[in-house]
Every structure is written in structure tokens, then in C-alpha cells.
């Protein structure tokens, strides 16, 4: 599959990992080139300076010869010193005033060198590099003292080649490394992307596979998986809620409708109509109550109740709510006992905490009657430790089997035995939502016998006194 492969390569080259590697390699090579280039230039000029110095000394000695012994002595000395041109060897050329060669091992005066100048590099014998300094002697003859640079330039050439090969290798290794790294990353990322695509296509149960190496990708995958888990739960909960809404709101709605119809059909006339209307209003009120509770839970779960915390004495509130429900409990044959506690100031949403306590006591009154008895016992108390504030409401009823405990906190869940009693089925879910809003939890425990519901609030809500 050459096409697929080249497509894969194009994808690999397009990855962030590869781009970053390429950028790093390029920056590295550029920096190395600047450093090595500077070193190279420095070495080269140092070598040239050395050669020039020795050339300059030789030139001076030849000028001295000319001054002492005249042109003839110079011609001899030059002839004596110039052997065949060889690598690293001395190069000499002596011309008379007319430009005719008198002596030396160079054939012609190089065009690069002027008669009076400082001298410089030139090429002789077509390709060989050299550096030389000219001298104009008093009798008009011209002397060029030079030195062959073949060795030096060979060295420079070798260094240059070495560097080029080195840079090439460096870039290649870097890029290949980059490709491999990108490929590894791409494989992991593709797993995540593929999982995401499957999930978007509707399979919410898919999870990202872990490599088991506990690397950052595994960490990411674990977090994403946890997020997916939560989403799946929420979607499932949502589905359950809509099913339950369909059931628990449709039932009273259809009851309301049939009441209205029955009243309209009733031959008794106006009196029956008025009575039917009153019932219809009662039904509507019950539906509104359910609806309000649903909305409140939804808002609490969205964390939408903001800036509503106030500082109050939780013990006082607990006492007040217990006081409010005491006659109701009494009528239901339940004895409501408030366990004494000192003032506990907390910063929280007073109305919501009050509602939660009310729901718990109300539940205890409705469902906490001991089986086969006409008298019940409800205890309400507050338990403050360094780590948590616990609001405890216990009854002596049937309790809730361990298996059902997580289920009852969900919306509309009503255990079969309580279906016949009035209630929206939202009481405990509201308590749980209030707890969550305050970063706390709701726990259902065995009161041996009976049910004990504990609203656990974090101790960070505690304040030392009012107004702090």
C-alpha cells in the first residue's frame, strides 16, 4: 500500500512532535554552524598570519642581500634558494626593471599581486594556492617572496568536509528521531481520537486503552476515561430522569385531566363543577410542587445557586425545623427528639440546609414508622468533629436495604413499599444535591433498627461566630 504509506508519512511530517523536532534540529545545526564557522575562520587567518610573517622575514633578508651585494648577489641568492616548487615550500621570482625574469622558481608574475601593494594570496601553476609579498628594489627590479599554501588549504578542506558530514549526520539523526517520536505519539493520539470518534458515533461505553507505562499519555487517558465515565453516568441519569418524569408527571397530569373530564360530565351541575375544579387545582399544585423540586435539584446540580451563603447557627436551625415538624410527627404517632448540642455557626445557604433538614424529618415521619407499631421515634442531632459537621436524622422504621441505598438518592426513586404514600420521590435527591452544593455528602446508615440519614458537611464551613 504505497499510497497509504505516503499518506501516513505526510501525516507524520505534519505532526506537532515532528515539527518541534525539526525546529530544534534546525536551530541546533544553525548554532553549531555559526560556532564552527567562527572557529574555522579564526584558524585559517592564524595560519595565514604565520605564513605571512615568515614570508615577510625572508623578504627582508633578500632586500638586505640586494643592498649589500647588489642585484647580482640577489640573483644568485634567489637562484640558490629556489628549488622546484613544492608543498609548503618557498616561492621566489626576481624580475628586472623591464619585466624580464632574472631568477626564481615562479614562471610569471601573478596578476593578483600588484607591484607595490601589501601582497596577498594568488594562484600559480593554474591551481596551487600561495601567499606572497612583493618588493620594489632601488634599481627597479621586482622581487616576489611567496609561500605555497597547498597544505594549509588541504587541511582547511578536510575540516570543512568533516563538518559538513557531521552536520548532515546530526540533522539526519535528529529528523529520524523526530519521526520516530512523532510516530509513537501519533499512535497514542490516534487511539484517543478513534475512541472519541466511536463515542461521538454513540457508543458511550468505549474507553481509551492504557499502555501501562504510566506515562503522561496514560495520565491523560485515565483522566479522559474518568470524564467519559462521568458523562456516561450523567447521560444514563438523564435518560432515567426523563423516563421518570414521563411517569411521575404524566400520572398526576392524566389524573388531573380525568378529574376535569369527570367534573364536566357530572350531571349534578354547578356544585359538582366547583368541587371538580377545586380538585383540579389541588392536582395542579401537586404537579407544580414536583416541578419546583425538580428545577431546584437541577439548579443545585448545576451549582447555580451563588452568593447566597450566610452565617447562621446550624444548631438553632435544626431546632427550629424540628420544632416546626414536632406537631406533625406527634399527629403521626412519632416522637421527635432533638439531641442537644451547642451553637455551631456555619457559612452556608440557610434556606437550602433548612429544606434538606425538613426533607429528612418529613421522610422520617412518613416512612419511618416501625412496622407493626403505632408509635415511632425520630432522633435529630448534630455531631461536630474536626473533620466534618454531621446532621443526623434517625428513625425506627423499616430502614433501607443496603442494595437500595445508592438508588434511593436518585430522582423519583421510590421503594415499592412507599409508593402508596404521598410524596414526590425527590426528597432524598434534593438532600443529596444540597450536600453536594456545599461540598458534602449524604450517607444512609443502618440505625439498627431503622434508617439513619447523615448530611455530612465539610468542617471548612465552620465559623467561630456570627458576622465573621
Amino acid at each position, binding site marked *: 500500500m504505497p499510497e497509504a504509506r505516503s499518506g501516513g508519512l505526510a501525516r507524520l511530517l505534519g505532526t506537532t512532535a515532528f515539527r518541534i523536532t525539526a525546529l530544534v534540529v534546525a536551530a541546533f545545526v544553525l548554532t553549531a554552524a555559526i560556532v564552527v564557522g567562527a572557529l574555522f575562520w579564526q584558524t585559517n587567518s592564524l595560519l595565514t598570519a604565520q605564513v605571512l610573517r615568515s614570508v615577510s622575514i625572508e623578504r627582508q633578508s633578500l632586500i638586505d642581500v640586494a643592498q649589500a651585494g647588489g642585484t647580482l648577489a640577489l640573483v644568485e641568492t634567489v637562484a640558490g634558494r629556489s628549488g622546484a616548487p613544492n608543498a609548503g615550500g618557498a616561492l621566489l621570482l626576481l624580475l628586472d626593471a623591464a619585466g624580464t625574469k632574472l631568477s626564481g622558481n615562479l614562471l610569471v608574475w601573478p596578476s593578483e599581486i600588484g607591484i607595490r601593494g601589501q601582497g596577498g594570496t594568488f594562484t600559480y601553476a593554474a591551481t596551487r594556492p600561495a601567499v606572497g609579498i612583493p618588493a620594489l628594489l632601488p634599481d627597479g627590479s621586482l622581487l616576489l617572496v611567496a609561500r605555497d599554501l597547498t597544505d594549509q588549504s588541504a587541511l582547511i578542506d578536510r575540516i570543512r568536509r568533516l563538518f559538513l558530514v557531521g552536520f548532515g549526520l546530526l540533522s539526519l539523526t535528529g529528523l529520524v528521531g523526530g519521526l520516530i517520536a512523532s510516530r509513537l505519539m501519533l499512535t497514542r493520539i490516534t487511539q484517543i481520537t478513534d475512541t472519541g470518534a466511536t463515542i461521538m458515533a454513540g457508543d458511550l461505553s468505549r474507553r481509551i486503552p492504557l499502555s501501562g507505562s504510566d506515562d503522561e499519555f496514560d495520565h491523560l487517558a485515565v483522566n479522559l476515561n474518568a470524564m467519559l465515565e462521568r458523562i456516561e453516568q450523567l447521560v444514563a441519569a438523564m435518560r432515567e430522569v426523563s423516563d421518570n418524569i414521563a411517569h411521575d408527571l404524566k400520572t398526576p397530569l392524566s389524573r388531573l385531566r380525568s378529574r376535569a373530564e369527570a367534573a364536566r360530565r357530572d350531571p349534578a351541575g354547578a356544585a359538582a363543577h366547583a368541587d371538580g375544579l*377545586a380538585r383540579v*387545582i389541588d392536582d*395542579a*399544585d401537586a404537579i*407544580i*410542587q414536583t416541578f*419546583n*423540586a425538580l*428545577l*431546584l435539584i437541577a*439548579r443545585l446540580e448545576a451549582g*447555580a*445557586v*451563588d*452568593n*447566597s451563603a450566610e452565617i447562621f447557627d446550624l444548631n438553632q436551625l435544626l431546632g*427550629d*425545623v424540628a*420544632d*416546626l*415538624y414536632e*406537631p*406533625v410527627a*406527634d*399527629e403521626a404517632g412519632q416522637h421527635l427528639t432533638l439531641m442537644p448540642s451547642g451553637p455551631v455557626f456555619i457559612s452556608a*445557604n440557610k*434556606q*437550602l440546609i*433548612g*429544606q434538606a433538614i*425538613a*426533607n429528612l424529618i*418529613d421522610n422520617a*415521619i*412518613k416512612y419511618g414508622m416501625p412496622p407493626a407499631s403505632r408509635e415511632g421515634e425520630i432522633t435529630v442531632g448534630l455531631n461536630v468533629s474536626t473533620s466534618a459537621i454531621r446532621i443526623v436524622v434517625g428513625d425506627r422504621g423499616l430502614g433501607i436495604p443496603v442494595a437500595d441505598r445508592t438508588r434511593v438518592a436518585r430522582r423519583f426513586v421510590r421503594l415499592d413499599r412507599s409508593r402508596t404514600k404521598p*410524596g*414526590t420521590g425527590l*426528597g432524598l435527591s434534593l438532600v443529596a444535591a444540597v450536600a453536594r452544593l456545599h461540598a458534602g455528602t449524604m450517607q444512609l446508615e443502618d440505625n439498627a433498627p431503622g434508617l439513619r440519614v447523615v448530611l455530612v458537611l465539610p468542617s471548612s464551613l465552620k465559623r467561630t461566630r456570627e458576622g465573621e
Partner: protein
Amino acid sequence: MLIIEDDVEAALFLQKALKESGHSADVAHDGDDGLVIARDCCHDVLIVDRMLPKQDGLSLVKTLRAEGVRTPVLFLSALGAVDDRVKGLKAGGDDYLTKPYAFTELLARIESLVRRTEPVETQTRYQVGDLILDRLAHRVTRAGGAVVLQPREYRLLEYMMRNAGQVVTRTMLLENVWDYHFDPQTNVIDVHVSRLRGKIDKGFDRPLLHTVRGAGYMLRDGAV
């Protein structure tokens, strides 16, 4: 009174129902009109919807209060969560009712607001028939005989006597006597009222504490 409500049908229904109960009402359909009318004229109570076109109910009431208009305001709103209520009261509203509401509830609250403008707080003694509540001595008597009440029952009775002759709803009692703004799930208030009734009406021929069907309770000398 003045109804500031953008839903034309709801406003008409409210206007009609108030008229049947003996109250005349003007209607404004948006925040700007509402503000102009509320400024100009002398209404006993303003019934203000929270969400209004042009200017929302909260800022309307804030503006009125800043201008020194002290007319009692009752907010009507579909926003019912606890913090919305608090915002409404902070903006200068006197009461807050969540939609959908029962008209009897609204009427009872409006009448309570109208009465609030009268200086009842300075009264030291309430009397309904032969039932007397002495706020200074903290004492209640019926036909001269002392009635012993729990502190909570005393406050309940005090609130009902202050609103004597008016319907007080269960929610009004819960809010004003207990200061709770949540749904008590059960008929808690009924139980408290029936206990109070047992203490003040039991053994007397003329009951003073009446139940108003579909609305709430009323303390009054004579039939409802």
C-alpha cells in the same frame, strides 16, 4: 394597584381577578412604561414581573427606590430559586411570589402589603372579638381568661391578629412566622394552626380562627 407584566393575557386575567376582589388595577406591559406610570401616580401596591422587555423588574424597582418611591412592591417571577428571591428583596421588593401561583395567595399577599403601609407595628394591643393579645405584657386572653401559648404559637397568633380580617396563606405563615422560604412537603402549618385553634377557640361558641378553603386562614369575629 399597578400590574407590570409583559404577558398580556396574564395581565388581563390578573386585572380582572383583582377587580372581582374589589381592587382596581392599571397595567403596563414593559419596564419603561411601568416606571413612568409607577412614578406618576399613587398606587397602593406594584405587582412587578421580574423579566420584562426594555427594562427588567429588578432595575425598575431599584430606580424607583433610589428616587424615593416607597410604594410596596410584590415581585412575580418564574425564577424561584432561593438566590433569585434574595436578589428581589435586596433590590427593594417587599414580597416575592413564584409563578405559577394561586390567585388567592397573590391576593392575600397584596392585601397584607396594603395594610403594611398603615402603622400597625406601633400597636401594643390587638383585639379580635373577645380575644386580646397584649404585646407589652406578652399575654393573651379570651373572654377575660388567660390563654397559655408556646412561644411559636404566640408568634403565629400575633401575625394572624396583625392581619385580622385578611386571608393569610400557609406560605405567608411559613415565611413570616418561621422565616422559611422552602417547600415544607407536608401540611406542617395546618397542624400548628389547628393546635392554636384548640387553644383559643375550644370551648367557645364563636370560632375566631377560620379556614378559608383553597386559600388559608383568617382570624375574624364572625363568619368568613
